């Protein structure tokens, strides 16, 4: 395979990625992050999101599959990749540098693209000062420092693992605004894992839902959200005449003859329901958060 790094069309391409642990297997997973896009990886705790992000940044060996970042192989071209990609994760610890100013001076030396003016702007926005002792910063402020060190590099790729945990609503909004600005020229790419689903619904161009190491659902955020409906209906005698229900219809709750279900509009579920003897069928839009809960629960409560 001969991919030219400079004119690679996609920011990140993950193909058939597999990572095996004794008690957990991630994959095979395929994810494509186009340039200019923010890709949100969502899923319940322990689904494999962090494992996937770590692999992209070259932390750990994958057992199968390829990962290309701007056309660069994530292992063979590791140095070039790390110059162009930045990673923010929950375990980064800058306490050794003592004060914020010292951490900044240390990190910026590695990166020729460091943008000092932008760094100063982010400092003001995040209300950090060079004199702040890192050890005494709040959890949220440490996260902001971590984001500041990544963003100020103006990297081509941002890999962010739970970057808004512990941030207040305003700071969260500021971070996402900066991510929007980062991709606006259509060159860079952001891969982000987060539980801030209403934020991702707004800001992420693409969503991948990962559950027990497998990608359950992937696509454009608006199309995913639009594809499903919350269905409510009544049955005359309290049973769905013909069972089991078809694919695309997941019963969520039932109270006597009243039913609530998740309906996939890409399936024949609605046609099927209408062919059954159901009454007062209403379909309502879901938020990404509603959809997440319904889909994750669905596979958990399979009898």
């Amino acid at each position, binding site marked *: 395979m001969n991919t030219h790094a400079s004119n690679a069309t996609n920011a990140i391409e993950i193909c058939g990625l597999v990572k095996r642990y004794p008690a957990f297997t991630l994959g095979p997973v395929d994810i494509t992050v186009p340039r200019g896009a923010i890709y949100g990886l969502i899923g319940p705790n322990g689904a494999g999101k962090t494992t996937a992000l770590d692999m992209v940044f070259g932390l750990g060996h994958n057992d199968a599959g390829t990962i290309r970042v701007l056309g660069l192989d994530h292992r063979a071209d590791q140095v070039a990749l790390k110059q162009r990609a930045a990673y923010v994760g929950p375990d980064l610890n800058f306490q050794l540098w003592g004060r914020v100013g010292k951490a900044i001076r240390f990190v910026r030396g590695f990166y020729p693209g460091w943008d000092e003016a932008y760094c100063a702007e982010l400092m003001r926005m995040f209300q950090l000062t060079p004199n702040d002792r890192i050890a005494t910063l709040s959890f949220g402020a440490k996260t902001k420092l971590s984001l500041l060190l990544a963003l100020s590099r103006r990297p081509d790729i941002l890999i962010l693992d739970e970057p808004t945990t512990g941030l207040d609503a305003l700071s969260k909004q500021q971070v996402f*605004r900066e991510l*929007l600005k980062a991709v606006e020229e259509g060159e860079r790419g952001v891969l982000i894992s987060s539980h801030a689903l209403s934020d991702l619904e*707004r800001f992420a161009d693409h969503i991948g839902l990962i559950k027990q190491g497998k990608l359950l659902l992937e696509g454009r955020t*608006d199309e995913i959200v639009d594809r499903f409906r919350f269905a409510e209906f009544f049955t005359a005698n309290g049973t769905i005449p013909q069972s089991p229900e078809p694919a695309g219809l997941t019963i969520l709750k039932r109270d006597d003859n009243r039913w609530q279900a998740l309906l996939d509009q890409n399936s024949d579920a609605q046609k099927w329901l209408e062919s059954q003897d159901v009454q007062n069928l209403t379909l309502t839009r879901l938020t990404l958060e509603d959809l997440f809960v319904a889909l994750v629960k669905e596979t958990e409560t399979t009898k």
Partner: protein
Amino acid sequence: MTNPRQNFLIGPISPAAAGALYQQIVDRIKREIAEGRLAPGAALPSFRQLAESLLVSVITVKRAYEELERDGIIFRRQGLGTFVAEGGHDRSRETKLAAAKQLLRDGFREAAEAGLKSHELAELAHDILKEKK
């Protein structure tokens, strides 16, 4: 053709509100046009500007603009920007009327389900109209 207004305030939009995010943008812009705050020829913000001000992905704004363009409410000029079309006002009004009709239908259905008879409904509509004045 004029420059985009400094404060193009059509937000906020929210995943928690009714309708898809792009649809909310479509509806807000139509309302601006129907109510005369955006005249024919007026410039709209760029995708990026509006995405940043509404805090949504650029894809969302793009989709909203594409729909407005398809309906002949706005038009794009390569390199110049996006503008309100000549017939944009009337077409926005049509959609507003259609929306109003639907809301009235829904309202009448609710009232009928609550047991109101036709003549009571007419009275109710009359009372609401008087309230408005």
